[in-house]
């Protein structure tokens, strides 16, 4: 019997104690437009973002990631629901009164100011003393390694440098939360990788809660402490990268992140096991609230499947190899199942031949998906 505790239903309160929560959104609904053109950008979103964590909103274009960030920043007001920041209701506060700063996708640096003045702008607007602004600006310049460019105009910077200035500018006032809306999407791949590491380092050094938006699943998996996967205005699943990757609770989450094999099966033993089409029965990991019997979809990662002889004891499924693709770090072996359908098996080494009959080994327990 393998029920799951790691996967939390996003609708229920999480295990974290209240004092560990930085942002608490409760039943947030946000719509745009009226009548027929009405769009529900956020549909009853409830989520907790903890202190000092690198939290990522991951989802396809138009799923409401930016909208959620704008609600936290105060640029938009929710139609319904509330947002608490460090235990305080902030719904009535305008953006300039929230201890939350944003790194915009377009950077939005002030073109009529130098790099240093851009970075000091937040503190200047807060009316901090000149000396304090100066030290903080220098500190930030050092943090993002831009000391030598302090007096440049911002339009004389490269994309990566602008990115660093935007980061420093948002971090300088030491906000409680830093919101980052796809900050790396304008950078080329190499710079992007560099900035991913840089961002992670900055988050660690400053201890500020980062809420990071991306639609790049690899970026989300490498950088985040926890990920919220969104679709069509809803948060489908919240969890650590490992939980999200290994135990996707929803079909959409499984499909969206990496390659995955989705097979049909039937639950047995009050949901404790699942019967595969080939007749083998293996353990089932049920998401909370899922039905305990009937036909279900199960998900197995390609790298969690093994190739064996068709008559081996651990061959839960059998099929015929249709294609083998070498991709450098390993091989993708495509297998047509005897019962119909195709699966992908990923192995570092393989001696399988196209056309050969093979058996497929699956993990002891597999993830059951909810649609």
């Amino acid at each position, binding site marked *: 019997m393998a029920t799951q505790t790691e996967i939390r239903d996003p609708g229920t309160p999480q295990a974290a104690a209240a004092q560990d929560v930085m942002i608490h959104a409760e039943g947030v609904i946000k719509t745009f437009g009226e009548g027929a053109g009405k769009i529900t950008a956020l549909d009853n979103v409830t989520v907790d973002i903890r202190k000092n964590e690198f939290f990522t909103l991951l989802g396809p274009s138009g799923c409401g990631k930016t909208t959620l960030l704008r609600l936290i*920043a105060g*640029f938009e007001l929710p139609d319904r629901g509330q947002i608490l920041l460090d235990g305080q209701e902030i719904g009535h506060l*305008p*953006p*300039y*009164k929230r201890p*939350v*700063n*944003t790194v*915009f996708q*377009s950077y*939005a*640096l*002030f*073109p*009529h*100011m*130098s790099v240093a*003045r851009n970075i000091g*702008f*937040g503190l200047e*607007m*807060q009316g901090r003393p000149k000396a304090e602004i100066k030290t903080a600006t220098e500190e930030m310049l050092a943090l993002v390694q831009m000391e030598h460019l302090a007096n440049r*105009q911002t339009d004389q910077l490269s994309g990566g440098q602008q990115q660093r200035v935007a980061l420093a*500018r*948002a971090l300088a*006032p030491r906000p409680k939360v830093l919101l980052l809306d796809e900050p790396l999407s304008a950078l080329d791949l190499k710079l992007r990788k560099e900035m991913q590491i840089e961002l992670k380092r900055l988050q660690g050094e400053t201890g500020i809660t980062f809420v990071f938006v991306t639609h790049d699943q690899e970026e989300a998996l490498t950088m985040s402490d926890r990920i919220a996967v969104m679709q069509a205005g809803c948060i489908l699943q919240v969890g650590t990268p490992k939980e999200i990757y290994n135990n996707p609770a929803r079909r959409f989450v499984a499909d969206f992140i990496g390659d995955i094999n989705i097979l049909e099966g039937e639950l047995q033993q009050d949901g404790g096991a699942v019967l595969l089409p080939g007749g083998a029965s293996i353990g089932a990991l049920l998401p909370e609230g899922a039905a305990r019997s009937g036909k279900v979809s199960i998900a197995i990662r390609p790298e969690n499947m093994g190739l064996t002889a068709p008559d081996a004891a651990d061959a839960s499924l059998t099929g015929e190899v249709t294609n083998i693709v070498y991709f450098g770090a390993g091989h993708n072996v495509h297998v047509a199942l005897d019962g119909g359908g195709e699966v992908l098996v990923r192995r570092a080494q393989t001696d399988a031949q196209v056309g050969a009959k093979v058996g497929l080994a699956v993990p002891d327990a597999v993830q059951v998906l909810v649609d």
Partner: protein
Amino acid sequence: MTDVTPQTATDARLAEARRQTMGAARRRRWQLLSPALLIIGLFGLFPLTITLVYSFLSPGSYGGVRWEFSTDAYVQFLFDRDIFDDTLSFSATYLNIFARSIGLALGATIGSLIIGFPTAYFIASKPANQRNLWLFLITLPFWVNLLIRTYAILLIIRDEGIINLSLIWTGLIDQPIGILYTDTAIFIGLIYSYLPFMVLPLYASLEKLDFRLVEAAYDLYASRLQVLRHVIVPMAKPGIVAGCILVFIPALGAYITPDLLGGGKQLMIGNLIALQFGGSRNWPFGAAAALILMVVVMVSLTVYVRYSGKEGNGRG
């Protein structure tokens, strides 16, 4: 050494050929420019030269000029000549008219900036498909002759006009406040006449304003006023400079507005100049006044543009 000479000879020939083609290109360039130069000369420099020459001649008794050199026109600007003994005494009459005109024009410029900025911002923040309609409405008064529009203003602000009547009707005043034929009337008229010249360049630069910068400033603890001061105004600076120039210059030389709304009693430079070529029959003095006005405008513009340019760069 022997082959140097022919080479130099070739070089010289090449250089000569190049000189010839370049000469031809230069000639062609002048030919193409000539219509423009002719028009600038005929309608720009030539009248200016006449004005300059006339300002150093003596007035004819029935208008026009006598071809006798005289600096009287410029002397008259600052001094009164005694009719009996020809002694000069300082007189501030014309200086005062200049000062008043500059004051009114400056006031009108600032006034139209204060009214024009929110208007332009309002239009620029409308959805793109509605902006043209608003711009059309702003320029609509221009479809009516300035004279007619000024008479309309006159009807509005006179003692029996809509302003006074409604103020009396609401009981705020019991005697009409005399606006007409005062500086206030001219001030209102100037702002009304030249407001679109302020709104259009302001709109042009505000429309280009990246609204994400405004959001970024809000996000960085700037209140509405601070956003205006630190982001919107600096970014709209080219529009502000252009708008101020476009309002100040015509306002300074305005003729119809002070003539009708000032009742001919409250003179501005434009009226003073017109008077010299009309009733006063002193063309040289009129020409001198026009030239002095031109110098004043040029000097103040240079200073203004220098100053605003420097401030723009100094930021940051």
